[in-house]
């Protein structure tokens, strides 16, 4: 028995999901299917969900589409193959901060560069959750992890800036607290023909919050509420106010550029194989 129309996008027999109590991944997974529901070009038969390895990447197993749970870091290459082999398919990638920016970092920037028509949603929990709380390239400075017991000294990536610099044509950030904003952000990403990148901040109470004394899941979400600043307001904020934990959310970048499948179709035209 489903209560809401978006639930038809879940494999009901696979629920409840395996994520810890209070994990933000479930919120983002719901936001994705709600965004898909709003886009009539995306059906369960013509949409493929591709994920890597890690907590967030388990989402593909719960979603009732053709789903591809790949190897660690490799979701974007697999997704690129799916899209180019059959450009009629819509391809959504679910990845995590370790999956996307550490082991999959090279694939990430090259996916952006080629402007492959993918919507990549990075669930950023600032930690390797599945393996028990090791530091990722998006663990903030000073935060503790099992592999950074005295606080991380590795300078973190800003994945949105990275995506923009590498050539993505839609770059935005939201959080598990700002649910309606998150849905709209993903919806706009799905609508962009090209490489769309959405960073969704999620709370990991088990492997990150607890070790860093951030309180229960709700407190971690309240932290998102209190520190996220909409891009328009952020831009007006003087530098001395952009302090502490404050961070911007919203649409950072959008551009028109030919997606890779369209660009390659010109190659096929020149070579004489377009009709086949």
């Amino acid at each position, binding site marked *: 028995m489903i209560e809401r129309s978006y639930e038809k996008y879940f494999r009901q027999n696979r*629920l409840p999901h395996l994520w*810890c*109590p209070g994990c933000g991944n*479930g*919120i983002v997974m719901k936001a994705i299917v709600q965004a898909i529901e709003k886009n009539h070009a995306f059906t369960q038969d013509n949409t493929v969900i591709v994920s890597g390895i890690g907590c967030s990447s388990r989402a593909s197993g719960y979603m009732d589409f053709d789903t591809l749970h790949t190897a660690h870091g490799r979701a974007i290459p697999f997704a690129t193959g799916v899209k180019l082999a059959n450009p009629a398919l819509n391809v959504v990638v679910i990845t995590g901060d370790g999956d996307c920016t550490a082991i999959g970092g090279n694939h990430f920037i090259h996916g952006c560069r080629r402007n492959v028509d993918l919507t990549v949603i990075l669930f950023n929990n600032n930690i390797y959750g599945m393996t028990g709380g090791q530091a990722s390239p998006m663990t903030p400075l000073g935060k503790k992890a099992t592999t950074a017991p005295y606080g991380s000294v590795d300078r973190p990536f800003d994945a949105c800036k990275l995506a923009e610099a590498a050539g993505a044509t839609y770059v935005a950030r939201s959080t598990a607290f700002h*649910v309606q904003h998150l849905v709209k952000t993903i919806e706009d990403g799905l609508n962009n023909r090209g490489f769309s990148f959405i960073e969704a901040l999620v709370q990991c109470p088990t492997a990150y919050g607890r070790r860093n004394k951030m309180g229960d*899941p709700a407190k971690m*979400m309240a932290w998102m509420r209190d520190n996220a600043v909409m891009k328009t307001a952020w831009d007006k904020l003087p530098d001395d106010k952009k302090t502490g934990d404050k961070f911007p959310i919203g649409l950072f970048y959008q551009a028109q550029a030919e997606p890779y499948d369209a660009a390659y179709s010109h190659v096929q035209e020149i070579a004489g194989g377009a009709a086949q």
Partner: protein
Amino acid sequence: MKSEFTLKLERCKGCGICVTFCPKQVLALDTLGKVYVANHENCIACGQCELRCPDYAIFMDKVKKEAAK
């Protein structure tokens, strides 16, 4: 009552997100750590609970005025 709740307790992991973000303290966790509706009369049908439930365990429907009588 302004609202009607559907709880799927087999999905509830007792994280407390709905309890905390409810502006009217309508919800609470029972001794087994599952959500229950403690003060239904206070509910203003804002839907914050359902919005952020990571486990799709709580659904809130607004009750239309006539039907609520």
